[in-house]
């Protein structure tokens, strides 16, 4: 409409296009956030709340992000409550009273959510104790660092056997295996 009116007036068409585009751009800005607050602290509380409260209609968006009518209403209420001097948690409680626990991305700490809030810490502490107990009860590896210790006679005989076997195979390696096909080394 504005565009047509503009064309009918004496402005050049290019100027019309530019001005209409610019006007629509400022409109978009206004839709997202054109709220005024009496002090910057309240503004910050408002911004925090709109990112923490969840839109019931479009379930994976916070109300700052959603343009569903209910999210707009909720933003409006958040603003007026914050301006009335309500605290962060009072506003969250106000919304939970109406829309249920679902409405906050940060569930309140209460018996039903203890598992959620404290469960991970319990698991970490439990894991720590399991590791501690295992380390204490499993026998330490052989103390081979102790070089002054008398060699174990059993160990000595084992080592002799191993060396004997190794040397046997080393001499075998030098001779060609009769079972393998001969390769012609000379071209």
């Amino acid at each position, binding site marked *: 409409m504005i565009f047509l009116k503009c064309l009918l007036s004496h402005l050049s068409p290019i100027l019309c296009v530019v001005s209409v585009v610019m006007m629509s751009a400022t409109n978009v800005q206004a839709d997202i956030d054109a709220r005024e607050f009496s002090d910057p602290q309240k503004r910050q509380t408002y911004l925090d709340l709109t990112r923490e409260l969840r839109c019931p209609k479009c379930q994976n968006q916070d109300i700052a992000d959603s343009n569903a009518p209910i999210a707009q209403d909720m933003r409006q209420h958040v603003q007026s409550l914050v301006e009335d001097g309500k605290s962060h948690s009072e506003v969250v409680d106000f919304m939970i009273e*109406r*829309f249920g*626990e679902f409405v906050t991305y940060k569930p309140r700490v209460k018996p039903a959510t203890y598992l959620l809030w404290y469960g991970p810490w319990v698991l970490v502490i439990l894991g720590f104790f399991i590791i501690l107990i295992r380390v204490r009860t499993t026998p330490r590896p052989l103390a081979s660092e102790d070089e002054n210790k008398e060699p174990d006679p059993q160990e000595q005989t084992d080592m002799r056997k191993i060396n004997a076997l190794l040397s046997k195979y080393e001499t075998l390696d030098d001779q060609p295996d009769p079972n393998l096909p001969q390769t012609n080394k000379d071209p």
Partner: protein
Amino acid sequence: MNKRLIYLTPLILAVGLGFILFTAIGKDPNHLETARLNDPVPAFELTVLADQTTAITHDALKGEVRLLNVWATWCPACRDEHPYLVELAESGVNVVGLNYKDEAKAALNWLATLGNPYTFNIYDPRGSLGFDLGVYGAPETYIIDTHGVVRFRHVGVVNEKVWIEKLKPIYESLGKQG
């Protein structure tokens, strides 16, 4: 024995988790709890749709078991369920309306042309009662008991299936309690 138990733990955990996830299959993730369930309808002071000089308060929702239907002319699903609401009203079900964020003229016109199933309509042009009730879209239908307490909420269209399976049993059991 003890060691075997330790090795079995991951399997037991996996089966347990699998069971929990399996039971959640087919559940509607859009279904929300009703925060106002078993609470009285929030206090309000509004007017009647038919006559905006007549005040109406939460006391009007006491004394009888009622269906409170949240509707608006801008809501296509409301038009969808409207004939069934008329049918319910004709069979004797007490239906009242909450005209939500609507224009009175359009709403009255709607009732004149499509039929009026409502014993009365609460006119809530700014959606304030709707907000306090936790309405997040239309249509929604609540069952209100004789003390004006919310006993059930259905989000979405009311049709024969919803009425018979969900609403009717609660509506009738509340009616018997008196």
